[in-house]
């Protein structure tokens, strides 16, 4: 599989997971939250300073439909993640020697 195809497929999986499958995720408290509740320190939690963010708790403010609201937040999150992390890693990467054009051949088959 060519790398371009691989990356495109990977991105599609991310969008489907965050945008569609996330609706079916368990809404039970996670391990930490559950233990905090059981042992009695859940009340020491405070609201985050970003609690009034338009995407807080993975739902889009102003979108009534639950499925759409969560899916949209997921898709926006995926796009932000892709831009931010790809930008960071692209800036950090070792530059390949331009004198050796053979290095630039896509190893994808």
């Amino acid at each position: 599989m060519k790398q371009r195809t691989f990356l495109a497929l990977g991105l599609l999986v991310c969008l489907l997971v965050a945008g569609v499958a996330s609706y079916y995720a368990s809404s039970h408290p996670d391990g930490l939250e559950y233990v905090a509740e059981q042992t009695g320190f859940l009340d020491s939690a405070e609201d985050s300073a970003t609690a009034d963010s338009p995407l807080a708790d993975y739902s889009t403010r102003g979108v009534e439909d639950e499925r759409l609201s969560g899916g949209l937040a997921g898709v926006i999150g995926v796009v932000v993640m892709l831009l931010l992390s790809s930008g960071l890693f692209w800036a950090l990467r070792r530059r390949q020697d331009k004198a050796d054009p053979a290095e630039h051949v896509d190893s994808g088959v």
Partner: protein
Amino acid sequence: MHVPDGFLDAPTSVATGAVAVAGVALALRGARRELDDRTAPMAGLVATFVFAAQMINFPVGAGTSGHLLGGALAAVLVGPWSAVLCISVVLLVQALLMADGGITALGTNVTLMALVGVWVGWGVFVLVRRLLPRRTSSVVPAAAIGALASVPAAAAVFSLLFAVGGNAPVDPGTVLGAMVTWHVVIGIGEAVVTGLVVASVVATRPDLVRGALPALETRELEIRSPVR
């Protein structure tokens, strides 16, 4: 395992903040060795995938759920230094955009999931890989076992931090016991997801799996006689 603001006191949060800054700074240097024109886009995809996968909480019984931490997965796919950065970016976006995990607790969350999760996951992965035959297929079980270990390890470190700087008067031993027990169960889910994802990348593009490099390098060229 996203720690909200308020669970840990200010001195503990400052301390974990300092640990997180140091760990990320080292990773910014170390990741250069792992990233090139071919692996940099892969690292971006892995970070994005971990973000997406963390939206999927899976039930683990008794009204509790867990989700992928992704430290071991990212380390096996793109190398531990880049993995620290992957998980840190995920936690930053979650804290700022989604209000998932506190702002003053960001250092704690980076320490637990990006540093402990990645390095325990990678360390156990490397140990298990050493015990298995030098084949690309060995990467899958090694990654799963690394993933399994990484989750209770992060839970144990949270419990230690809670013992030092928890804001509520709760017995730290009770917290440690409950945290580790539940996160062993969540770790099984972590192992399954990590194994499946690593297996599918190994099957399609083993050259994009950092943890498979030693196996690929030793794969010998064989001279085959033509079939007549």
